[in-house]
């Protein structure tokens, strides 16, 4: 009994320690992020931010676009299969447009960024830890949070919403292709209906989710990197853990956001 209690207690403390570390890291990064900004910040940090934007955002464009096309097509097909029975095929337009703007755009983007860039962040920082590069930054009076994490976070805050817009656009385009081939609906009319079905609030909630997901992915992944202990094997473990934890927290946060926006009356 005592051992079981000890086990529960130590796990609870470990979880609290993890959440506390995430919070400390987040606030330290927000304080240090000024240096990553253009004009007012450090030129080299801004250059690093631009490089990260290219890696997180630009390099992920083909993958996100293809994923969104496939997901949009699947959603339209599945929706049409049911809606056709009620003679409501035109609601596929609303389904695809709203689902991608509010939900699927941010979520698919976050999943892709978590797998692609989150793992890379954890591996990069973990390797820097193992090879004493983080220590060498500290002894050069440079803070790893400012030097390594700041540019990554700012880049993710820029890239993830942009990728989400691209993702939603391609998802909606896939829906348009489906409607064109199945109902001979002209693309012009399709996009008119799409614009009518989306409200500004849908776009804003989607963007809020994107910013939250970017925060979760960067901080969970980087924390996994910073917590690497030992040798190269622990880098591998931290990479896996970064993807698993950040994806889990993204989905958890998404459900909380969705419930919040639903009950606050918007949807």
């Amino acid at each position, binding site marked *: 009994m005592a051992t079981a209690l000890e086990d529960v207690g130590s796990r609870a403390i470990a979880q609290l320690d993890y959440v506390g570390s995430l919070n400390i890291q987040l606030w330290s990064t927000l304080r240090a992020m000024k240096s990553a900004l253009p004009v007012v910040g450090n030129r080299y940090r801004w250059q690093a931010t631009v490089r990260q934007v290219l890696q997180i955002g630009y390099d992920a464009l083909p993958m996100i676009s293809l994923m969104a096309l496939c997901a949009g097509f699947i959603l339209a097909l599945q929706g049409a299969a049911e809606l056709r029975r009620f003679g409501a095929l035109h609601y596929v337009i609303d389904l695809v447009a709203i689902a991608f703007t509010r939900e699927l755009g941010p979520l698919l983007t976050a999943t892709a960024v978590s797998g692609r860039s989150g793992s890379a962040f954890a591996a990069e920082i973990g390797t820097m830890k193992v090879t004493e*590069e983080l220590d*060498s930054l*500290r002894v*050069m*009076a440079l803070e790893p949070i400012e030097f390594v994490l700041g540019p990554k976070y700012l880049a993710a805050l820029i890239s993830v919403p942009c990728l989400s817009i691209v993702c939603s656009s391609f998802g909606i385009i896939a829906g348009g292709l489906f409607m064109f081939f199945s109902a001979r609906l002209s693309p012009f009319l399709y996009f008119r209906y799409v614009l009518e079905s989306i409200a500004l609030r849908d776009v804003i909630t989607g963007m809020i989710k994107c910013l939250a997901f970017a925060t979760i992915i960067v901080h969970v992944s980087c924390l996994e990197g910073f917590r690497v202990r030992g040798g190269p094997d622990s880098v591998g473990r931290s990479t896996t853990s970064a993807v698993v934890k950040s994806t889990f927290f993204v989905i958890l946060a998404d459900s909380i956001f969705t419930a919040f926006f639903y009950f606050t009356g918007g949807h």
Partner: protein
Amino acid sequence: MPIISIRGLVVEYEGRRILNDLNLDIEAGETLVLLGGSGSGKSTLLRQIVGLERPKRGSVTVKGVDITTCSLSELKKIRHSIGVAFQSAALFNSLTVEENVALPLREHTALAPSIIDLTVWMKLAVVGLAEFGKLHPQALSGGMKKRGAVARALSLDPEILVLDEPSAGLDPIVAAELDELILLLKQTFQMTVIVVTHKMASAFHIADRIAMLYQGSFSLVGTKDEIRASREPRVRQFLDRVPEELANPANVSAYFQRYLERKEAFL
């Protein structure tokens, strides 16, 4: 007044005592070699001297500032006067050798880019890497990486240079070149140099004083002659390269008996 003063330093990891009540003064301009076997606490002591870790008890005073209790901004100021070359070199793989050396100058000085380039070239020339500045660390040999790390440590013209096992894993010629480099730096720039090593020849070549660590305590701190003349068993064991089992004279006959038995068995 010593440039570095260590008083009653106790370091523990997970309840295990690594450094046990150490006291040491290091005078400005001297070369102190920290000698000791693997796991004796040399690198831990070094990390304390550069303020990478906080001790359980005791103080480390660098240039009159107790770095175990001072604020982060004070510690950063102190770190500007300390150059550190880690055992693994810890050069940033994403930067060229030139960029690695330029990093502290870009971050901590307002020098014009042309002056930084010139300074970097000079530092690389001192360590014999002037022609290799454009390469990334992955393209360098082990010895070149270590010299690159020394060049980076020298970039801000520090008063104190700390080298963690600079000749570990290097062939005797490259190791000898590094020893000559350390002597050159001391003579030319009157630096205080702290070198961690377990290579006796290197230690006796470069040291003004040698501090011998054994299981977290100093066995002896003295000049080269004092160390050579010492009858302290641990020092003698290290100097005479006696395996652990033979340190106890009662084990000697048993050791050789086993050796002869094995030899006979093979014959």
